[in-house]
């Protein structure tokens, strides 16, 4: 039999990615078997491209070309630089869990303080006994690749009734250039628990690296969870993140994603409302410039009756930036009295910027209230002139209007401190434009 070796655009054999990393991938023999199978799936599918409907607007073969080799574990110098970066990016009062180039760094993390309230372990440890951690119900190639290659992550278990006294901040730091980090985290929030989870992605001087992260989050009944994601990777980096979220009954989930970096980024979220009476507020802002490509793909699955979902997303696009928003609301046949709304708006600051908004409703129940809206346009000239006539220079007038535009999404963040933090990120992005 003549089997052709699959090659990347750069001529490297795709299989090398796995074989060269295999010795460093944690897990019991059964986990390694799961990884091998996942890698075979990836090898068969290859990087997603425009002929795959879900990836139509984010063709990774064209945008990325190939997956870079697994990053080496950080050495002492890298950890030192990471420690300095953590000081800058840590959110005041939060308990930090730090991953450097895909490896958990316990010395930089607040494990002790956290362990008093939360069950904590690393993915590396957990994979010695639990192969299920790498399994998801997805057939997506990048998720298969994540399962095959994930080196580390955090495994958090927040017990029933726990009211976390401080937010948990998972900080992903990239110190290694031209390499990939694969991480996967598992977070379980028990019944009646209250938690705030922040994820930050930052570069520590590294260029042209790739991030492939996955988060599996399950939330019990009567819980209250805030999940904030701040993606500020290097301008030439790639960040593909996948979220799998299951929400119990009478629970509130307040999710927000902020994208201010990466040449190519995609957040793909799959949120299932699996218990009645729950409220999902999922929002985000993409601030993109130069040739950055930012994709938010969100599937909200109303599997049961009487849930509410609200989505407010804003994209601001300068230069030749490209934003993609794909939002799907699924209402299953039994999910009567579903109330789902999605509003997407893109602001184009340049004639060469591009926004692709694709809202979809798949409704199989008859007694529901669902709606969506999508717009793309430039700043309103009459508003700009009013501000200029009052003394604001062009860029400052634009900044004020852009802040108002993204404010509609940012104001959905329930926590006052985090909302202010995100406003600060937007302000700094706008200052850099001036």
């Amino acid at each position: 039999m003549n089997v052709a070796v699959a090659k990347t655009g750069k001529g490297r054999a795709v299989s090398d990615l796995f074989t060269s990393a295999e010795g460093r991938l944690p897990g019991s023999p059964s986990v390694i078997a799961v990884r091998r199978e996942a890698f075979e799936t990836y090898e068969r599918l290859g990087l997603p491209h425009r002929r795959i409907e879900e990836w139509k607007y984010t063709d990774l073969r064209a945008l990325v070309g190939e997956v870079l080799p697994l990053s080496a574990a950080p050495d002492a110098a890298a950890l030192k630089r990471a420690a300095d970066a953590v000081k800058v990016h840590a959110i005041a009062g939060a308990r930090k869990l730090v991953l450097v180039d895909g490896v958990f760094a316990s010395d930089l993390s607040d494990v002790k303080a956290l362990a008093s309230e939360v069950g904590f372990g690393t993915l590396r440890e957990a994979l010695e006994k639990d192969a299920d951690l790498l399994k998801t119900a997805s057939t997506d190639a990048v998720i298969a690749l994540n399962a095959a290659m994930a080196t580390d992550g955090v495994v958090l278990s927040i017990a029933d009734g726990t009211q976390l006294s401080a937010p948990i901040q998972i900080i992903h730091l990239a110190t290694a250039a031209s390499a990939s980090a694969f991480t996967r985290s598992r977070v379980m929030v028990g019944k009646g628990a209250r938690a705030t989870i922040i994820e930050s992605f930052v570069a520590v001087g590294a260029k042209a690296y790739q991030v492939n992260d996955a988060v599996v989050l399950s939330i019990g009944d009567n819980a209250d969870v805030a999940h904030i994601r701040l993606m500020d990777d290097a301008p030439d980096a790639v960040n593909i993140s996948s979220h799998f979220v299951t929400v119990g009954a009478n629970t509130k989930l307040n999710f927000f994603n902020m994208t201010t970096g990466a040449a190519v980024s995609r957040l793909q979220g799959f949120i299932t409302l699996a218990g009645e009476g729950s409220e999902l507020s999922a929002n985000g802002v993409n601030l993109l410039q130069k040739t950055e490509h930012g994709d938010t793909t969100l599937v909200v699955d109303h599997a049961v009756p009487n849930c509410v979902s609200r989505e407010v997303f804003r994209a601001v696009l300068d230069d030749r930036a490209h934003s993609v928003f794909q939002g799907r609301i699924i209402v299953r046949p039994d999910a009567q009295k579903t109330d789902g709304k999605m509003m997407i708006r893109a602001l184009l600051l340049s004639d060469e910027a591009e926004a692709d908004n694709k809202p979809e409703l798949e409704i199989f129940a008859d007694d529901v209230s669902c709606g969506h809206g999508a717009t793309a346009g430039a700043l309103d000239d009459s508003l700009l002139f009013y501000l200029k006539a009052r003394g604001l220079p062009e860029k400052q007038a634009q900044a004020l209007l852009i802040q108002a535009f993204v404010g509609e999404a940012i104001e959905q963040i329930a926590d006052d401190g985090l909302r202010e933090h995100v406003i600060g990120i937007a302000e700094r992005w706008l200052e850099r434009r001036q």
Partner: protein
Amino acid sequence: MALLEVKDLKVRVEEREILHGLNLTVNEGEIHAIMGPNGSGKSTLSHVIAGKPGYEVTDGQILFKGEDLLEMAPEERAAKGVFLAFQYPVEIPGVATMTFLRTALNAQRKARGESEYSTPDFLKKVREVSKSLNIPQDMLKRGVNVGFSGGEKKRNEVLQMALFEPSLCILDEMDSGLDIDALRIAADGVNALHSPKRAMVVITHYQRLLNYIVPDIVHVMSKGRVVKSGGKELALELEASGYAQFEDAA
């Protein structure tokens, strides 16, 4: 030196000439009224002075304190002391009135090389001014003009005038959309701001506003020119006989 000198100004909008050689001189401390029928070019004049895009000046000059205004961006004109009170002030959702006022005031001060106001100093100043104009603090917390009544929007324009302390205020159809009480409140605010150093140009279709803001000089515009100037009695004359007599003169 005159505060504002408009000399033989010709302006086009999309190939159509709107102003056909307009002359106007305003000195410090004077109140001018510009009256005229719809389409005579009154609002065009105010827009060109403020620097609104979309107008092509084909001939003539506008000097402000001796400087060429047409060479300046709208924000430079504002910092130099030109203020246009809009006929229809825009609503800006998501921008709190307070934020807007502070940003604008500090941008003007910065452009003039003056120190920017600190937040406490600014708040103190806004409170004083808004109190004198009967503007409730609650209005300042809302988005700029969002949900404001016609009268509130005009009072917000007067508030800005009081804060920015311009030397030339152009009031474009300030009376449009106002009932008589709202008109009186807005006009009282304007009168309070009149000073020997500050000139006002009141653009209006009706004589009514001039009962409250009494002009020194009244100009009649028709078909893109000033066709007659006179004292305040000219406004009363117009009220009695209408604009028709000037349509032919122009």
